[in-house]
């Protein structure tokens, strides 16, 4: 089965007003979603990316330049990713559509991972 990457795009937001109860509810939704995927053997992996924006590297004819990622000022960052297994894009999209990320203002970029075999 091909693998798909879910890139979680989001806008940096201020969560300081959220109650512990609300925070717990959000976590529980993600946990329930990923546990369901895991039970269906669909979840290949997932990682959170750090918020600080990372680095951009560009090559200039034999040289390269490193710059800070634009994310600190950017309207949008990639906050993390999941890798899932699905038969095709339709199925992958269906699985991704249940991701709580979509409920909380983010959007998901779905990409099929090229199989090398």
């Amino acid at each position: 089965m091909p693998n798909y990457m879910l890139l979680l795009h989001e806008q940096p937001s201020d969560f300081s007003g959220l109650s512990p109860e609300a925070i717990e509810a959000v976590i529980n939704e993600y946990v329930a979603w990923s546990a369901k995927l895991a039970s269906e053997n669909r979840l290949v992996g997932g990682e959170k990316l750090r918020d600080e924006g990372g680095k951009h590297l560009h090559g200039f004819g034999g040289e390269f330049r490193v710059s800070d990622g634009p994310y600190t000022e950017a309207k949008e960052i990639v906050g993390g990713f999941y890798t899932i297994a699905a038969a095709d894009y339709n199925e992958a999209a269906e699985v991704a559509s249940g991701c709580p990320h979509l409920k909380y203002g983010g959007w998901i970029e779905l990409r099929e991972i090229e199989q090398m075999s």
Partner: protein
Amino acid sequence: MDLDKTNEIIDHLFRQRAGQMVSLLSRIFGIDKLELIEDAVQEAMIAAMRKWPFGVPENPSAWLIQTARNKVIDELRRAGKSVGLETEESFELADTASTTPDKHLSPIGDDELRMIFACCSPAVAADSRVALTLKIVGGFSVPEIARAFLSNDEAIAKMLTRAKKRLREDTRFPELPPSRELLERLDAVLRVLYLMFNEGFGATAGDDLVRRELCFEAIRLAEMLLRSPETSTPRVQALAALFCFQAARLPARTNEAGELVLLEDQDRSRWDMRLAERGLEHFRLSARGDERTEYHLESEIAGVYTLAPSFAETDWPRILACYDELQQRRYSDVVELNRLIVLSRIEGVGQALSELDARFADGRFDRFYLYQITRGHFLAEAGRAAEAEAAFTTALSLTDNTVIRRSLIERIARLAS
């Protein structure tokens, strides 16, 4: 990431952990840093919200504490304050990979207990203590407290800011076992729990879910007091019994439409009898010693109501005896209304009505909606429908509470038919 561990997140973990962490960190770093500590705990929880979707740590509690503690230290350093070596050492790194309960969190909640006593300090204005305890020990947010109190965020935030200022300036983190001075504060603590429960239990129109939570938080804190030998007294048992008996009836108190259901009409099969049994156990323990406080009397009333096999078989004389004793100790007009309702079950509605009219002949209660509702109730029972309707209509003009208004409108309609 380990998804097998994810089931370990339990209900209300965060709310309770927030209070535990603020209490723990206040003991370690000092209550004068309360606001910095609260911010650090909030940030740790947000960090969990951002990270745990990709894998929950082996020991979620330890992870939260560790993260909050590091944020406090970072912030203190950033502000140029020295972080004493002893502070760091007394708080050696929690092993976040360990699955054993975190050693920093005392199972009986000593730090929270201390924090409850701090929140009920004489330095804190009496009317701010409930909100302060909910915020700091209970982990309730400002909007949640505002919803429960039918207030607005701004007013609650202001009240809390003032209360916390007094707490930081005038209070040291209380010691355990509590000193005699601190034990003298126990009654103030019980009063706060009593008000917290009533805020949740009263028939006000605040957010139902949050208000339920208030009741269970009051139970949790009362039972926490009971786990510590110094604060486990008969009157605390009586208070816990009262809470459990009352809360047992919560599931049947409103119908699907969110309307208030009178005790008489409640579906008793929906009552939480396990909670009622817990109440009975507390009630039994409250009888140790020769103390018979107002909490004892109130818990007895609640217990008789909740444990009666049916509404008709309620032991009215026993309830009336408790009300009589309560009224002899400290007369209250509002309690008198309740007493007369019980009296009407025994002596008939005519007797209750004439006592009611005699008691409030001076008209001091005419503009009080509960008085008008009680009077309307008696008049309706006595078959004086027109007068009953007039009383209910007056009551309707005296309260903004949507739940009560709906129930009144329904009763007026029933009278007309």
